[in-house]
């Protein structure tokens, strides 16, 4: 065995692992570069170079251990944070997703209208004698036939064309039909060619045998970066926030728009726009209450169970296993089961108590349900933690206090709890931070509701900041990713501040100094 893992074998294995990791990165670099994701491509390239330098030289031994962790830290923590911060400074919502050049080309594409009669022609796609793309168009009802290229139109005498059973022309002088395979090869050219019809209209191809009559209603002037509607004369100019807006009516703008930098406008909106500020304050208060109540109830119940289980009890091992079950079950499943049990009409809880409590329709009950379910999910964690911590507290302390005449309550308040809190404080802070962003419980149990929709409320009664942010980003008809990013950044700072404060207060990092 020792021989097998001699230096030669391990070095070869190392080369193979490094080579395959590099190959994977190389593939991702090429793929992301092809998709014009230059930032990702650049990051992966740095990673590739770092791997080569670290593992193929002896430049830094510690780096050989740190590099994988640092790579993933940057890829999945630092990168998303930076991206979120960057996006919070953009006008980035439904209708403003793409780049400005893409938006211009889309506006030009949708700025084409069929003629009022929605005229279509049966066509055959082919070439003229000079190999130019040409269509043989038929209007069998009126017996009108013509050939058209990107620059010419030739009307045909019906007597000179051969027609099929539907009256569509099949053969015309000088016209050579393309085979399906030839058409397939020329798809892009066929799709983008505008065939001549008249001064007002042109023809575009809408399939292998259909073409329609169209006119350009919006024209782009690159010299002054404006669009003009040739039918109404309206001029649309870049409004600086990602849209071409009508100069005489700012609310009339062309779509799509583009992702434009608006710097701190999204942050300013959080404080200045009453439609955002008011629900945000309500949601923030409930988030604090929810996180605090969750931690307190989970800790209290966990501690209570731990203290009971700390005594000699018949069947203690069985009880312990049962108490850990909620923690062992996937929380998503538990939440969905609880959701069904709380259903007003058909739920087990109302059925059991013979009640008709509108658990998810009434704000108070919905909040209570959220706390109850979260208590069920979280107390085993604190039960486990506090069980361990209780056993670590020397029994002599309690015994000495008892000899001095302290009651059980006094022993708990003055000795057990302070010692326990010293140990579990960092975990309480971590649990608070986790529950502050506990998206699953809210999204799966109540969906943030109930919402006083008819009263004009935007946020639901059980929405916490993260679920509210999700609604803004993805939940509604209009998705505002820029604003959601700004709220995410604010949440990040709140959590970071609370955690830092908690950690400093608990002096948990003192031992690392």
């Amino acid at each position, binding site marked *: 065995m020792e021989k097998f893992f001699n230096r030669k074998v391990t070095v070869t294995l190392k080369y193979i692992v490094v*080579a395959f990791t590099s*190959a994977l990165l190389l593939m991702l670099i090429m793929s992301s570069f092809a998709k014009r994701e230059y930032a990702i491509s650049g990051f992966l390239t740095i990673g590739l170079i770092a791997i080569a330098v670290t593992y193929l030289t002896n430049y830094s031994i510690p780096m050989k251990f740190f590099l994988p962790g640092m790579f993933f830290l940057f890829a999945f923590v630092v990168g998303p944070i930076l991206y979120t911060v960057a996006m919070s400074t953009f006008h980035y919502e*439904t209708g403003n997703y793409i780049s400005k050049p893409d938006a211009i080309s889309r506006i030009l594409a949708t700025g084409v209208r069929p003629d009022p009669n929605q005229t279509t022609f049966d066509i055959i796609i082919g070439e003229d004698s000079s190999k130019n793309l040409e269509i043989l168009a038929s209007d069998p009802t009126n017996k009108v036939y013509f050939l058209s290229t990107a620059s010419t139109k030739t009307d045909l005498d019906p007597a000179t064309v051969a027609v099929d059973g539907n009256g569509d022309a099949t053969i015309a002088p000088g016209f050579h039909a393309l085979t399906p*395979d030839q058409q397939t090869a020329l798809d892009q050219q066929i799709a983008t060619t505008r065939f001549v019809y008249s001064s007002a209209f042109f023809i575009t191809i809408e399939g*292998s045998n259909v073409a329609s009559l169209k006119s350009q209603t919006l024209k782009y002037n690159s010299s002054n970066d404006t669009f003009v509607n040739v039918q109404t004369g309206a001029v649309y100019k870049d409004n600086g926030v990602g849209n071409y807006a009508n100069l005489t009516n700012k609310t009339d703008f062309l779509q799509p728009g583009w992702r434009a930098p608006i710097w701190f406008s999204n942050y300013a909106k959080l404080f200045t726009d009453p439609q955002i500020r008011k629900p945000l304050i309500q949601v923030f208060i409930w988030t604090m209450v929810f996180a605090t109540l969750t931690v307190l109830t989970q800790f209290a119940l966990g501690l209570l169970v731990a203290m009971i289980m700390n005594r000699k009890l018949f069947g203690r091992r069985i009880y312990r296993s049962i108490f850990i079950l909620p923690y062992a079950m996937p929380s998503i499943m538990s939440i969905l089961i609880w959701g069904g049990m709380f259903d007003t009409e058909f739920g087990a809880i109302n059925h059991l108590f013979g009640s008709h409590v509108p658990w998810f329709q009434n704000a108070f009950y919905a909040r209570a349900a959220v706390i109850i379910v979260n208590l069920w999910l979280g107390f085993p964690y604190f039960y486990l933690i506090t069980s361990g911590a209780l056993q670590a507290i020397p029994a002599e302390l309690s015994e000495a206090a008892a000899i001095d005449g302290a009651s059980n309550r006094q022993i708990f308040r003055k000795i057990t709890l302070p010692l326990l809190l010293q140990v579990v404080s960092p975990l309480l802070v971590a649990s608070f931070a986790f529950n502050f962003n506990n998206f699953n419980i809210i999204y799966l149990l109540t969906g943030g509701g*109930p919402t006083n929709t008819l009263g004009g409320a935007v946020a639901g009664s059980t929405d916490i900041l993260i679920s509210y942010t999700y609604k803004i980003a993805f939940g509604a008809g209009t998705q505002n990713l820029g604003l959601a990013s700004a709220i995410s950044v604010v949440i990040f700072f709140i959590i970071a501040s609370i955690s830092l404060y908690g950690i400093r207060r608990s002096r948990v990092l003192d031992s690392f100094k």
Partner: protein
Amino acid sequence: MIQSKFGKVAALTLTAGLMSGFVSAPVHAASKTIIVWADETRGPHLQQVIAAKGDWVPGYTIKIVPFSSFAALDTAFGNATALTGPDIVVGANDWVPTGAKEGKLAPVTLSSSVRAQFTANNFFDLSYKGVLYGVPLDVNNVAMIYNSKLTSKPGTFAQMVNFYLANKTADKLTAGLCVAGGGMSWGAESVLSALGGAPYIMSASGAVDPSSDPLPAATVAANVSKYLLAKNGKSNGFFPATDTGCKTAFLAGTVPYAIIGNWEWQDYANAGFDMNLMPVPGILHGQNGAAFASVSGALLTVYAAAHGVDQGAKSLLNNFFGSAAGAVAYQNVELRPPANKKAQKDASVTAAQKGFGKAGAVAGVPQIGAILNGAPGGKAFWDLLPAFWTDVLVNGKSPLTSAQAMDTFFKANVAAGIPQL
């Protein structure tokens, strides 16, 4: 030493990199393939149809990509880019305004023969600001089914309520009428309509009438009080404010009337129920509650042009999705009512498909996303109607106050939506 290390590793890296490059080469680069995205039912069924006959567009290969759910498809399309997106997506009609605003959908002009196969409402559903973005595929609607083992065909809303109140104890009924398909907004729209309200009023010419009050609050409130509430102002149990458990309860025989979606009628047929389909009856004889009869569409994306298959994708829309032959072949496996008029009359279309089609024809209204999705800063119909049911039937709020509040939002939505049509 270093040189040799680099040499060995570089050789291995390049070999592995090239191999992985070949494996991960994009599908569009390999052939002229038209990529169609569809949900978990339409996708496999389209695959089946295309596998049986794949030459709808000569010179192109058609690849159907099914998703695990409609929501997954929606999310994927939301994240699609020019390099990852489909050429055609089979989606809901209310994707059109968003897709058009985002520049993801491309305009379509259909041949006159294809246009003749659909109604103006069908095209209205798939248009944004007067531009058409796809081909109507199947009709999405709900209809009311009644359990003929418990009751007979009702003529009015009152007959249903009276039956429930008279028999709820004897028959152990858990509700009278409930929504099994379409949710408390889309599915329950026909109940609101039966009681005198609507998110918008269509004029005789088929356009939205901006001058009509969509929700006459006093009328709706009076009807809600009369038919859905008991004397104490609480729900009389006839119409629950939630759709949870409705399907199970109907199948168990504890609910006599249910609103079901046309995508799941087989579940009821398989459970032995006759397809007693009808619109929700109105307050007066001969009146019906209108239900949304929207169409799903095969929508052309801008990615088709980026992939170099724009012409092929347009041909697929005309030759397959827009043709009667394509619609019949597809609906024979998908079993929804086809939007194509010629396909609707085909002998192979089932009675249930025709039953839903008939209910839609009698009491169908177009589903206009530009209005229903809500005015900027306002509220979407999808949120308002469930909130109305909850406020009135669960929280005991005044039907009149709630109806007035909803009407205000409806009016704002109509005003904001009409300029986008």
